[in-house]
């Protein structure tokens, strides 16, 4: 069939931020899947709690401090993450590199605190169903912190190579920061259920 040119796209950019970026939508897709997974995990926790005679089952509630430290740490990390998004959107290489180094640390620190959290649960995964579900929820969230920490480290390394001069990398930095927001926000309901719910119903 013959063709007739009606739109010229030669002047359009080859990368963009947020809703104009394909990768941003892909990230949002993965966030949707994981939200669904977390939601079902939390629902399973509540389901088991509602079936049980006492809650927590045959164990004291988790010690509060590691969880509080974790929550404070994650909430504080939102600030440098926000600044990093701004640097990326302004395509400022130096401050983006600095922000990524800081966010790499904020990715690794929670993994250390997480060790103490597991120890503060006061129950093992094979003690009873309560132990199983709290280990599962905490484990699931740890996987997310770990994944994003590795992701951030790799991206940081990449931004210190020649590739940091490619403008489209700033969009990747923005997407990675959006994902970290999700890791932090998804923690809050888990924090509530794991640490406060047993104290409220117990």
């Amino acid at each position, binding site marked *: 069939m013959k063709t*007739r040119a009606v*739109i010229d796209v030669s002047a*359009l950019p080859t990368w963009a931020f947020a809703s104009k970026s394909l990768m941003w939508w892909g990230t949002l897709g993965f966030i949707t899947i994981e939200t669904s997974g977390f939601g079902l995990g939390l629902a399973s926790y509540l*389901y088991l709690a509602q079936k049980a005679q006492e809650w927590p089952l045959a164990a004291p509630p988790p010690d509060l401090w590691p969880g509080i430290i974790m929550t404070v740490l994650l909430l504080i990390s939102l600030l440098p993450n926000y600044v990093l998004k701004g640097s990326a959107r302004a395509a400022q290489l130096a401050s983006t590199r600095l922000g990524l180094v800081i966010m790499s640390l904020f990715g690794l620190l929670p993994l250390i605190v997480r060790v103490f959290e597991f120890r503060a649960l006061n129950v093992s995964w*094979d003690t009873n169903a309560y132990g*199983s579900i709290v280990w*599962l929820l905490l484990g699931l969230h740890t996987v997310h912190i770990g994944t994003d920490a590795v992701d951030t480290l790799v991206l940081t390394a990449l931004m210190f190579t*020649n590739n940091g*001069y490619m403008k489209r990398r700033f969009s990747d930095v923005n997407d990675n920061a959006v994902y970290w927001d999700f890791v932090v926000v998804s923690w809050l309901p888990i924090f509530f259920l794991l640490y406060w719910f047993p104290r409220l119903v117990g």
Partner: protein
Amino acid sequence: MGMALVRRLMATNPRGIRDDELSEVGLKRRLEQTWAQPTGWLGWLMVDDHKIVGRRYIVTTFIFLILGGLAAVAMRLQLARPDSLLIGPDLYDQLFTMHGSTMMFLFAVPVMEAFAIYLVPLMVGTRNIAFPRLNAFSYWIYVAGGILLWTAFAFNTGADNGWFSYVPLAGPEFAPGKRADIWAQMITFTELSALAVSIEIICTVFKQRAPGMTLDRIPLFVWAMVVTSFIVLFAMPAVMLSSTMLILDRLVGTHFFNPAEGGDTLLWQHLFWFFGHPEVYTIFIPATGMVSAIIATFARRPVFGYLALVLALISIGILSFGLWVHHMFVTGLPRLGESFFTASSMMIAIPSGVQIFCWIATLWGRPLRFATPLLFVLGFIVNFVLGGLTGVMVASVPLDTQVHDTYFVVAHFHYVLVGGAVFPLLAAVYYWFPKITGRMLSETIGSWNFWLAFIGFNVAFFPMHILGLWGMPRRVYTYPAELGWGPLNLVSSAGALVFAASFAVLLLNVFQSFRRGAVAGDNPWGAGTLEWATSSPPPPYNFALQPVVNNREPLWAERDSMPVVTGLRVDRRELVGTSVTYAEAETREVAPDPSIWPFLAAVATTIMLVGSIFTPWAVVWGTPPIAVTLIGWFWRKGEKEDLD
């Protein structure tokens, strides 16, 4: 220094070569080079063209269809007469589990995705699927899951707890050995691949539609796949979560489903059916999309009630999450809950009915040519309406209580799934085979295929309604002669053989037409959507110039010349990125080149997942290789695709 390198690269030719600078022949030659797939055995593992991956998916799903079908034939031979000793109870348990699991996880859902992987990018007028490397990864993971399940079966470790693997039967106490673990891990493989494909499809449709293809100009099959993909995003995590819990219960002594330690067996059923019911719609909704596409072409007019059909698809998608408890009516749930789920189960008949009436209205009063695709669509309407009617019946608690776990239910869901999805799928095979291969399937063999399938299917499954009402339970390997179920079972088995023969005829047709079929040309059916605007089979770049869309059926509206986009670079893989609602051109998106890393990542993932069936330590030693392959996948060395 870095900046200097970039500048040097850009300076060589900052604009690249643009499509409007070349002659028609030169353009095609250049695109052919840029979009060429790698060759050789290594190249074979790197392929990321959506058409090649889609074709591989389609062929693989049909291999699993044959395997699952043979399992069904074996079962029907066993049940053909009472007190049969052909197959023992243990093998029979494996057979029905393998049949159900294969058909649901390795055939029905993946085959719909396979067609979408092939067709959606063509239908929306783009050059490749979004995230083509993820697409390649998803295929390898899917194949690995299927091989795992069937290899285990060959070594007498076939899953044997039914396709929904209920606990406590599948738990550590009653299912020693590795059969249940193999099943649970196969789930992880297939769901991982389905989730990946769903994201690709959503992103392709949201961001890579041809300019001008506003939301109300998206072909109905594409709409169906978007809705399906969203269902997958919300439903599949439920079965991944529950199958992980099951493996943990079996491997490291957790107690999710162990009532003695505060666990709950119904938790499994809730999680499984929260996935399992929407799963049915991830099979059925794409099929309705196929039907809409085929009916419009054969009626030679736009589908009646486009908006109503889109809204029906979306409401079926949402309602599908409110039905799961109707699989659990006999588990003693609260009465109020049961009433709610009865109501929502009946409600889904409304959008389904809307679809049927829109299709009938489209066909009404048109001179129809009864080519094979249309025959299968008409067969679908008959069979699906029958399945829908028994669906409304089992939605009611008292009736369901009576027929639960009997052959009535088996009849019902085969009418819905085979009648509602496999018949449209076969219509789709006949309809799009010319596009995929460039050759027509034989119409003569096609009508044989249809009539054998239609008669065989009804003879096989209609008697099961009666057997079920007489009380014949599912999943029994035999039955005594005194119950009087023998004759109808014999009829059913005979029908099953005819139905199986119809697939042999299909294969014959495919093999013969692939070599000697009539040459199809670009648009053999005179259809209106974009996949027919390019050659059959399409070139690696799909469209030499990407189309612009001003109408729901662009090929019917633009008969003289096709409006197109210009200004894309052709010395790298550029395509138009558009806005979500109005499909206005926003970016020149650069698609990545093929890579070996997705395959390596799939291998590493497979090793970890299979290892973790046997030892939890596999997660520890299996994760670093996955991380390495993923980093290799995402690492950038300043390829041409990265330049601004």
